[in-house]
């Protein structure tokens, strides 16, 4: 029966303090909208930079006299290394075609023989795309028979890695500030909401309600408030993404619907933020109530 009381008082509390409740839902929604947009903006930004990064990390040029067996051996060595997500072989003819496509000249018409070497292009996964690992790989390859040269686009690689690192730090700092301001903003609103219920809290304390019985309906209210705020924030983000795509402004590679973990995270964050915020506000008020 106490559960009935808690549920009923929670619902009645919302009905009786409709305005402060709606304002709090709105503030949680705005706060979580900022968090959600922040997460998706960072994710999309990283995806964009990731796309911008070269299709491959390094190119292994072979000597002109490399035999089919040498090439097979080199291929086996490359694929035998962990962290290789892609390996492409470019024959001398492929290299000539690329040269033609890039410079508009047919290399065979300029020279009698095709001087361009055949090569392997190698791409690493994110876990292994770091300077020390790649350098170790280069050293191995340079010692392999029939390998002429290994070209690692170090400058571009390091620049992109640097940019990514800065973005990670900036994004983490921005998200942290957003979350912090979200917590303060929401806590303040919840405190105002609880303040409007001072009379009720005082009355039930005097009538012999335990702390649990005072707090429980508010905890429920807070949970509902947080859920509504988070759900509305998610809907707003979804609407925004759809609108951006519909009006051909930008087609985002990362969307909230593709990331249920972001939706679940927002809901959990919203519910915890609001219910704990409400509890804290009630606990603080109980210090001043009989």
């Amino acid at each position, binding site marked *: *029966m*106490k559960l*009935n*009381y808690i549920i009923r008082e929670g619902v*009645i509390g919302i009905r*009786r303090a409709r305005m402060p409740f709606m304002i709090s839902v709105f503030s949680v929604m705005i706060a979580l909208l900022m968090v959600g947009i922040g997460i998706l903006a960072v994710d999309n930004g990283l995806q964009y930079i990731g796309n911008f990064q070269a299709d491959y990390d390094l190119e292994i040029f072979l000597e002109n006299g490399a035999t089919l067996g040498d090439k097979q051996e080199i291929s086996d060595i490359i694929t035998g290394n962990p962290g290789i997500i892609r390996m492409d072989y470019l024959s001398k003819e492929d290299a000539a075609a690329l040269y033609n496509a890039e410079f508009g000249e047919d290399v065979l018409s300029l020279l009698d023989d095709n001087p361009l070497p055949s090569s392997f292009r190698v791409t690493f996964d994110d876990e292994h795309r770091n300077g020390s690992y790649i350098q170790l790989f280069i050293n191995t390859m340079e010692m392999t028979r029939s390998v002429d040269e290994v070209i690692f686009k170090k400058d571009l690689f390091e620049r992109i890695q640097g940019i990514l690192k800065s973005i990670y730090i900036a994004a983490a700092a921005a998200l942290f500030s957003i979350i912090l301001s979200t917590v303060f903003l929401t806590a303040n609103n919840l405190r105002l909401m609880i303040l409007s219920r001072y*009379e*009720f809290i*005082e*009355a*039930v*304390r*005097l*009538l*012999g*309600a*335990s*702390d649990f*019985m005072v707090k429980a309906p508010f905890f429920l209210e807070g949970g509902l408030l947080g859920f509504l705020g988070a759900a509305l924030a998610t809907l707003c983000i979804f609407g925004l993404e759809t609108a951006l795509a519909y009006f051909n402004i930008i087609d985002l590679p990362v969307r909230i619907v593709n990331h249920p973990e972001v939706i679940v995270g927002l809901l959990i964050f919203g519910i915890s933020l609001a219910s704990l915020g409400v509890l804290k506000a009630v606990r603080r008020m109980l210090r001043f109530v*009989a």
Partner: protein
Amino acid sequence: MINFKKATLRYDSGISVRNLDFSIEGDEFVYIYGPSGSGKSSILKMIYMDLFPNEGEVLVFDQNSSSAKRREIARVRQQVGMVFEGFKLLADRDNYCNIALPLEIQGMKADDVHSRVVRLADDLGIRSRLHHFPQELSGGEQQRIALARAMITSPKILLADEPTAHLDSKASTDIMEWLWKIHQKGTCVIFATHKEHFLKQEPARTISLIAGEIVADSA
């Protein structure tokens, strides 16, 4: 049932009551009598454990208020009914819900709550007012609602802090009659007042206060 053992309560602005030493038994009707500021409300607040003595002890149902935990205070309050000068009814719910609240806090079933509220409202003559809001009633009626809320759990002690302060003489007399009826059913009633005529109308044990000190106890 209630024991004050050399209890002194000191506010930052000065002493409120000093060296209170008395006991109240379960079958008593007691007036706490004195002018405004003499410490009547402080005594009642110490009984329902809203205030705690700086020196000495206050025991209610053998529970020492100074060492009581919040849970224990809640348990004591469930056995103490309170009627305040300003009624302290919740304006955002009707009179039925106001009266039913203490039972709901204790987890009583809705049907039982309903029958008890209706029965008590009948006794107090306020049944027709149950679905009105407190602010729609006169002062006397509001005080009867407050009395019903205080009595709905059948408490062992009823504290009445100047319950007739804002009422006309007819309403005051009604409330006094009700307090005596409640007492006759076995509830210990502690009535704080500054009006001397009540003491003459319905004589009972009187603890007289002046400036926070007991100057007479007719026990």
